[in-house]
């Protein structure tokens, strides 16, 4: 987040206080714990009520990528990125395809991780381990993107007075401190603050950017029609295929994010979960649609930026607005706080899930089968710190654009989808068939990506792999003779 958006001492103190308050929330959450069990640490004792559950679902689903990556993508391809509103909505349809049955099962069996379900359903250590490794890999990639963006954000508002690496380290430490203090309870309660700040930030952006910089959306679109007509026209056939592919990629992939599944497990009741998901269905209209409008405005007022620079257009727009009045300045400070909220709320949730899967699905079955709950919880906290250190080292040492990172993680994660969407409903789907499908899907997805063909007629390599994966599961299940009694 660069682009000359430099804050004065008052704004920096306000942002600093906001960040420190996260640790306060973490400490308060620690005082409210009911036991030293994994269910209490990783699922807040399955006690999240409507307000907390909705805001943690919202703050976790909408990441720094929504703010920076999606405005940048709209800047580059125009209205074709309206697809983002549809595919973020599709995540909720993805939940409807498996969540009712998984949630009922999870409450009966006391699941903590997605791996618990796979182990229960398929009784296959190989399938559970491969699924867990894929989910951890995808989540590490996701958390990495957020952590990298934190560095850019800090560099931007301090005019590089604070190097990005220090920003990454500082914010990562705050995040891991409040996460290890209170686990899911801390993360969900900080998500309440972060979710409200994020909603406020998107509201400000929707009012401020198109009106103040572009003279209103209609004016922006008329200007863009003259400057770059393809950005306002209907997409090509390949572009339409990409819309369909994104619906599968996000609708299936984001719906089985481990941190999303653990939020399904954490709700106080099914009634609370249903109300939260019903409202989540409308949130793309207040979030991704706003990012779309900001990206279009940027395409008009800041033309001819390169690909890497285009991921910073939101910061550049804010820099243009903030000098105009004291009110604008403080509104931009609020938007920046929203950006930090988006980054941290997504990264902390991913981190907590990675730690839970490492502890419950790898450490316990393979290293310490008889470990007590208190020991497992402690291992989870220590592993969080180790994972953060590794991610911070990688984040400081690598470069890539945000949206590409997002696509790469889904190529892998989406191959676990048949275990949920089919495994919950097809009793004859065996572990061997699911494993064969998963491996075939992975080979195709990674093979196409490594061959430099991330898209095939507009379809993502991961989605092509998923089609093959699902076909293997379908054919394997049909060929298996029905059991006779």
């Amino acid at each position, binding site marked *: 987040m660069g682009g000359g958006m430099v804050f004065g001492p008052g704004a920096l103190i306000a942002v600093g206080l906001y960040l420190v308050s996260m640790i306060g929330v973490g400490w308060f959450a620690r005082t409210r714990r009911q036991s030293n069990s994994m269910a209490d640490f990783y699922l807040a004792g*399955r006690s999240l009520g409507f307000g907390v559950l909705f805001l943690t679902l919202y703050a976790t689903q909408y990441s720094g990528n929504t703010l920076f990556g999606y405005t940048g993508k709209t800047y580059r391809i125009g209205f074709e990125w*309206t697809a983002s509103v*549809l595919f973020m909505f599709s995540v909720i349809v993805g939940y409807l395809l498996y969540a009712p049955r998984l949630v009922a099962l999870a409450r*009966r069996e006391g699941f903590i991780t997605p791996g618990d379900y796979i182990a229960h359903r398929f009784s296959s250590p190989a399938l559970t381990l491969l699924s867990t490794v894929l989910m951890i890999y995808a989540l590490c990639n996701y958390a990495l993107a957020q952590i990298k963006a934190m560095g850019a954000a800090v560099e931007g508002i301090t005019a590089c007075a604070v190097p990005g690496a220090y920003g990454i380290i500082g914010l990562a430490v705050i995040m891991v401190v409040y996460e290890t203090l209170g686990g899911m309870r801390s993360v969900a309660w900080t998500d309440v603050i972060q979710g409200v700040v994020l909603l406020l930030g998107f509201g400000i952006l929707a009012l401020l950017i198109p009106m103040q910089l572009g003279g209103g959306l209609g004016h922006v679109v008329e200007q863009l029609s003259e400057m770059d007509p393809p950005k*306002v*026209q209907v997409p090509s056939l390949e572009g339409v295929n990409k819309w369909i592919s994104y*619906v599968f990629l996000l609708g299936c992939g984001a719906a089985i994010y481990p941190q999303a599944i653990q939020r399904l497990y954490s709700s106080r009741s*099914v009634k609370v979960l249903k109300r939260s998901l019903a409202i989540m269905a409308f949130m793309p209209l207040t979030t991704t649609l706003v990012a779309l409008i900001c990206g279009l405005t940027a395409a008009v007022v800041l033309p001819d930026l390169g690909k890497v620079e285009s991921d910073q257009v939101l910061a550049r727009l804010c820099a243009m607005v903030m000098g105009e009045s004291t009110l604008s300045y403080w509104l931009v400070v609020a938007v920046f706080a929203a950006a930090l909220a988006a980054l941290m709320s997504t990264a902390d949730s991913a981190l907590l899930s990675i730690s839970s899967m490492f502890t419950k699905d790898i450490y316990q079955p393979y290293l310490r089968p008889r470990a007590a709950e208190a020991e497992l919880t402690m291992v989870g906290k220590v592993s969080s710190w180790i994972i953060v250190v590794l991610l911070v080292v990688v984040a400081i040492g690598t470069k890539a654009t945000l949206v590409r990172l997002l696509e790469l993680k889904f190529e892998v994660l989406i191959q676990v989808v048949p275990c949920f969407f089919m495994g919950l409903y097809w009793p004859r789907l065996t572990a061997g068939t699911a494993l064969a499908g998963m491996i075939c899907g992975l080979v195709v997805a990674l093979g196409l990506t490594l061959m430099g063909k991330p898209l095939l007629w507009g379809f993502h390599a991961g989605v092509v792999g998923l089609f093959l994966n699902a076909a293997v599961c379908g054919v394997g299940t049909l060929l298996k003779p029905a059991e006779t009694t």
Partner: protein
Amino acid sequence: MDNAQENGELVGEPRRVGYVWLVYLLLYALAIPWYWPAGYRGPLVLGFPLWVAVSLGAVVLLAIWTSWVIHRHWIEAGEQD
């Protein structure tokens, strides 16, 4: 402590209701802009090109439909009237 045992069984779920997915299919077909002529922009509706306004309108309908489906077809024991 864990309150998993306090919850009832699932008695209804959207996945098992055929017409729910037929409506989804129709609304997705409306939301994805496959049916417009190449290079079309159209008049502006609330600042959006017509084809975008139609897609966004379809997403609004999808969200309303989803909320109703969750309310009507995701039913646990004890929730039935």
